[in-house]
């Protein structure tokens, strides 16, 4: 007779679809965002297929424009933004703080339904003919010129935003109110700190994008003059509103990944983080300064030269807390007990790719240099290093690290290492050539391009194929592990943290007895030092 855990405590569709257990809701998200990742990946594959040759010969220009638009919308709003918060955050935050669930379990389930409703709108927009504005919905193209399903897609983004807001609210209240006795702020796992910072952006930023897409719908549907100069509006206003959210949204994607990496690096070096408070506060610094840099998306729009200079300065400032994190992770490995399991390989991949992604961000922050590379493939390469090399590496690393806890099963470490290697190689082959393409001047969102750019595009498409194999493998061995994997012990990695003190998979109530916390996480060796530096 199997012991009762959250997975076998209740059977049938209703026990899942009406669950209020944060762990089951996390799995609902896991399945749905994996589906969206596959859809977004399919669009990416179509893009790379078209760009194999200079001529626009695989699909029409309109189809191509819809492909990159849908790729961006699906990946940003329906995969990257919810990925780590909604799956790993949902699963782990209550456990990491010694609670039985989130503060508002029903709201948590509602968040998932809202997310699905928003996703349904977007899929309807895709299936009924698509949308071709780019994921950025720039006006007046989106309100006056585009001849596609802009309002449906915009409503998808609008609706799913409420899912983010509710999730953020839930996390913040939970972290404030439900920590176990003795779990002070500075004993919190760094993953919780990063989720807290992310939640701040969720609730402060998301309403702005919601308002903005609503205004787009109002102008497009009702001809209210807001952004279109022909109606007396200002198209640049849209860009300010859009990036006020959408730049912080980049930090929604990367901060959770940073939290995951902090956990993995500590677990696989069996060593507490170097400079805990600097790593924790750098998350908050990124969340706050991240709200002040949106204008670097408008360097060539005609905004005033002085605004450009200020936004350039602030964009450099936001890079400093990111650099601090990278240095602290590196220092943590020093004198650790390093075990290169697949999770740690993803963490190493993250550190390397995020370093390159972050440093190339400085090129774009340097306003005089940005003029040349703005809206070229240099930008595409840069933000894929952050979002794919950073955020998805972190997500994959986190899935591998916590999979035994979530599923109760061990996966094949050999296959997992192979997949991590393929993803790293495939990723670099896909996106590194795009830096060169960008500096050479290839603009983004081009259906056809001059022949001298072909070599780099072929390399990129080749890399994307390797990347696709790398992403497909985990799907196979994770599913395989559910049926055939060894049973996971409570703490398969010899890691420290509340989540490793309860069985795998955890019981529905997480903790039979509420734990009392006497020290921070990841304390492996006895320490002479007092307090936390």
């Amino acid at each position, binding site marked *: 007779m199997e012991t009762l855990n959250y997975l076998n405590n209740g059977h049938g569709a209703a026990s899942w679809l009406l669950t209020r257990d944060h762990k089951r809701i996390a799995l609902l998200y896991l399945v749905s965002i994996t589906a969206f990742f596959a859809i977004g990946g399919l669009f990416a594959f179509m893009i790379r297929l078209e760009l194999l040759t200079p001529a626009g010969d695989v699909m029409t*220009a309109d189809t191509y424009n819809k492909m990159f638009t849908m790729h961006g919308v699906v990946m940003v709003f329906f995969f990257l933004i919810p990925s780590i918060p909604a799956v790993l955050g949902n699963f782990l935050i209550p456990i990491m703080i010694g609670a039985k669930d989130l503060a508002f379990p029903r709201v948590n389930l509602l968040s998932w339904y809202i997310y699905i409703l928003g996703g349904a709108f977007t899929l309807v927009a895709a299936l009924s003919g698509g949308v*071709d504005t780019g994921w*950025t919905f*720039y006006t007046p*193209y989106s309100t*006056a*010129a585009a001849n596609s399903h802009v309002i449906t897609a915009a409503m998808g983004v609008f609706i799913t935003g409420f899912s983010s807001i509710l999730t953020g609210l839930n996390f913040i209240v939970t972290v404030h109110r439900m920590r176990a006795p003795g779990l002070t702020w500075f004993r919190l796992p760094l993953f919780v700190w990063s989720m807290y910072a992310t939640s701040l952006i969720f609730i402060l930023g998301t309403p702005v994008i919601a308002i903005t897409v609503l205004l787009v719908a109002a102008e497009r549907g009702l001809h209210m003059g807001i952004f*279109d*100069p*022909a109606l007396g509006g*200002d*198209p640049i206003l849209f860009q300010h509103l859009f990036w006020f959210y959408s730049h912080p949204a980049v930090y929604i994607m990367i901060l959770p990944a940073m939290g995951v990496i902090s956990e993995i690096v500590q677990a696989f*070096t069996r*060593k*507490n983080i*170097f400079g*805990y*408070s600097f790593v924790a506060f750098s998350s908050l610094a990124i969340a706050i300064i991240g709200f002040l840099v949106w204008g670097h998306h408008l360097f*060539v*729009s*005609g905004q*005033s*030269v*002085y605004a450009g*200079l200020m936004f350039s300065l602030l964009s*450099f400032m936001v*890079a*400093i807390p990111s650099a601090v994190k*990278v240095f602290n992770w*590196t*220092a943590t*490995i*020093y*004198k650790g*007990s390093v*075990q*290169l399991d697949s999770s740690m390989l993803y963490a190493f991949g993250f*550190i390397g790719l995020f*370093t*390159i992604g972050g*440093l190339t961000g*400085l*090129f774009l922050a*340097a*306003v*005089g*240099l940005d*003029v*040349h590379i*703005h809206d070229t493939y240099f930008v595409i390469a840069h933000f894929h290093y952050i979002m794919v090399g950073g955020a998805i590496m972190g997500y994959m690393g986190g899935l591998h690290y916590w999979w035994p806890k979530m599923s109760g099963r061990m996966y094949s470490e050999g296959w997992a290492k192979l997949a991590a290697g393929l993803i790293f190689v495939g990723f670099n082959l896909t996106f590194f050539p795009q830096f060169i393409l960008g*500096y050479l*001047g290839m*603009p983004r969102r081009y*259906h*056809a391009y*001059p022949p*001298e750019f072909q070599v780099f595009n072929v390399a990129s498409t080749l890399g994307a194929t390797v990347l696709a194999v790398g992403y497909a493998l985990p799907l196979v061995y994770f599913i395989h592990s559910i049926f055939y994997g060894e049973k996971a012990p409570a703490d398969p990695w010899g890691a420290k943290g509340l989540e490793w003190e309860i069985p795998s998979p955890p019981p529905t109530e997480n903790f039979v007895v509420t734990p009392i916390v006497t020290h921070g996480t990841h304390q492996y*060796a006895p*320490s002479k030092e007092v307090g936390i*530096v």
Partner: protein
Amino acid sequence: MFTNLPLFPVEGSVQAGQVDALYFFMLAVTAFFSLLIGVLVVFFAIKYRRRHDDEVGVAIHGSLALELLWTIIPFFIMMVMFGWGAKVFYNLYRPPAGAMEIYIVGKQWMWKAQHMDGVREINELHVPVGRPVKLTMGSEDVIHSFFIPAFRVKADVVPGRYNVLWFTASKAGTYHLFCSQYCGTKHSGMIGSVIAMDPNDFQAWLGGGNASDTPAAAGEKLFTDLACITCHRDDAQARAPQLKGLFGHTVQLQGGATAVVDEAYIRESILNPQAKVVSGFQPIMPTFQGLVTEEQILQLIAYVRSLGQVAPPATTGGAAPAAPQTPGKD
């Protein structure tokens, strides 16, 4: 065999060298820090690899000195990047007085250029080597972006306003012109060539071109055809401000504000005359929205400019009026 596989674009303008110098500096910094982190991570991972199952790492909690070190050093390096980038940008943003002026209109999906002596081009732009060229750019529909990679310059072309771009070509040749702001179906077809020519060749090309009226002459004709002249007249019956010598002046508006008469102000006054009425006049002018095209507005501006102007006051950035002498043949 790899002659056709460049890693860096050609430098076709004076500005290109300035941008590339900053680029190479940042590449060096990026290479240094990427290697530093990469080598340290790999070295530590090998040196401190786990040797037996229950081994744990050494408890080290941190070091304030190191934290300060790796906050302050990146800060100073970034300030160098910021200052350098700002300097390059400031230069890219300010067209020198006396630059040769060309009007550009973007529309889905073509570029139209209008030289001051009447030559017009579509998807091509001929410019002389060695002389600053200033483009004043407007859009008829959505946002486009005018991008010449070989010159390292780019500016969005935004409906409802004028953005300015300038460069000095340094090497004769034919270069790509791209639209770099997504603008719909044929965005990737909104491309053309910039042909930088020897000054003599350029003069010859101008002479052999399909010159029509100069923009100023075309504007003068429009000024009559649209009956602007009935109010904007030189005599005492004028019901609207006299335009002679007005360009570049600051005018007093109703309500006490002032405005500099530049391209943007004239454009606004044609399309939305009630927005900024000069003090002492009635708001009687009708809008010409929909009656004039973007190109015709630029012709009207050229005409107003040809009526004489003052040297531009030192104003803030943006569409500061430049060029004390009117280019062209008048």
